């Protein structure tokens, strides 16, 4: 889908959260596989934290946990990775082979108004995912 038809582009000073499944975590550490696209996906699902309009990070994490639990079965050892959009985009642009420009676009759904997507992860998803992994600011249990 043409990303210009989707919602607003999320600017650099905002934060996003990525749900990391238990199988994407080893020994408590999130792995780059948490930032891989499925074969049939164009955009990586994340949540726009600032859209939640919470007072602090703990409240944001609580809000996310509620969103996740309403949408799908949350794994016992799943985690939430917090990333700043600008740090992620800058790192990928500066350190990828092709100066990749990632786009983070607001893509609300009926059951998740903060839902957003990261585009331009392909080709070379493995390298891009490892770069994104290095920009994780903090992580929390997802339930």
């Amino acid at each position, binding site marked *: 889908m043409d990303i210009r038809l989707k919602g607003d582009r999320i600017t650099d000073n905002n934060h996003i959260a990525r749900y990391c*499944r*238990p*199988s*994407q*975590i*080893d*020994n408590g*550490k999130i*792995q*780059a*596989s*948490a930032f*891989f*696209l*499925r*074969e049939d*996906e164009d955009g990586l699902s994340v949540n726009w934290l600032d859209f939640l309009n919470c007072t602090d990070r703990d409240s944001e994490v609580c809000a996310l946990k509620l969103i996740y639990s309403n949408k799908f*079965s949350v*794994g016992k*050892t799943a985690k939430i990775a917090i990333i700043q959009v600008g740090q992620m985009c800058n790192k990928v642009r500066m*350190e*990828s*082979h092709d100066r990749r420009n990632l786009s983070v676009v607001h893509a609300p759904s009926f059951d998740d108004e903060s839902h957003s997507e990261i585009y331009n992860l392909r080709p*070379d998803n*493995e*390298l891009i995912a*490892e770069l994104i992994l290095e920009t994780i600011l903090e992580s929390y249990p997802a339930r």
Partner: protein
Amino acid sequence: MFDHYVPVKLNIPYFDQSILFDYPGESQNIGAWNWYEKNQDQATFFNSSQINNYSKDDFVTPFVQENILEVEEKQVLNLIFDIKRTSYISNREIISRKLLNLYFLEKEEGLDGFGIAIGSLRNFYHFLQLYSNIKIPMISLTPDATIYTSWKEHDHLFSINFLSDGEVRFVVFKPNDTNPKHKIRLSGSATADTIMELISTQGLCDWIFG
């Protein structure tokens, strides 16, 4: 015999929950593994919705015919057991336990599919047979159920995505000794039998092999 029910359970007579719950903690139930290796045709799996319909005593008999495994799921488990039994793979116990844990984590989430892509697992096993003294990697699954391994040491990284078609895609991060402000970042694709030859020139062999 069982203290509580688990989302996915292997129905064997000497089973306790240690296989599923003790990783990465205490030792696994060797008796349970040994029984399964000899009696795979008799093993059945329960999903979480069925498990609560059974009382403890129902698990005493090994021949309850409920939710029989698909052929490919058994192939995945058999291959994990093959890894465990391949004596010349130096870290086979921990690696096979990690794989089994990943398999059950995926099944627990109730997703369609077989937990781990069988082609990826074969590819990974082939790699382990070729490089049997490899150090224990971090192991995870991609959304397409392929195996993703990572070795990290200080500011060195070597990661491999084992695809189902026999190819691997790899990533290497390492310091740039000539220009310390910059890092060297490599990525590409190869096959399991050529990947180490490709990266041996990158000075990674010292810290990847045990």
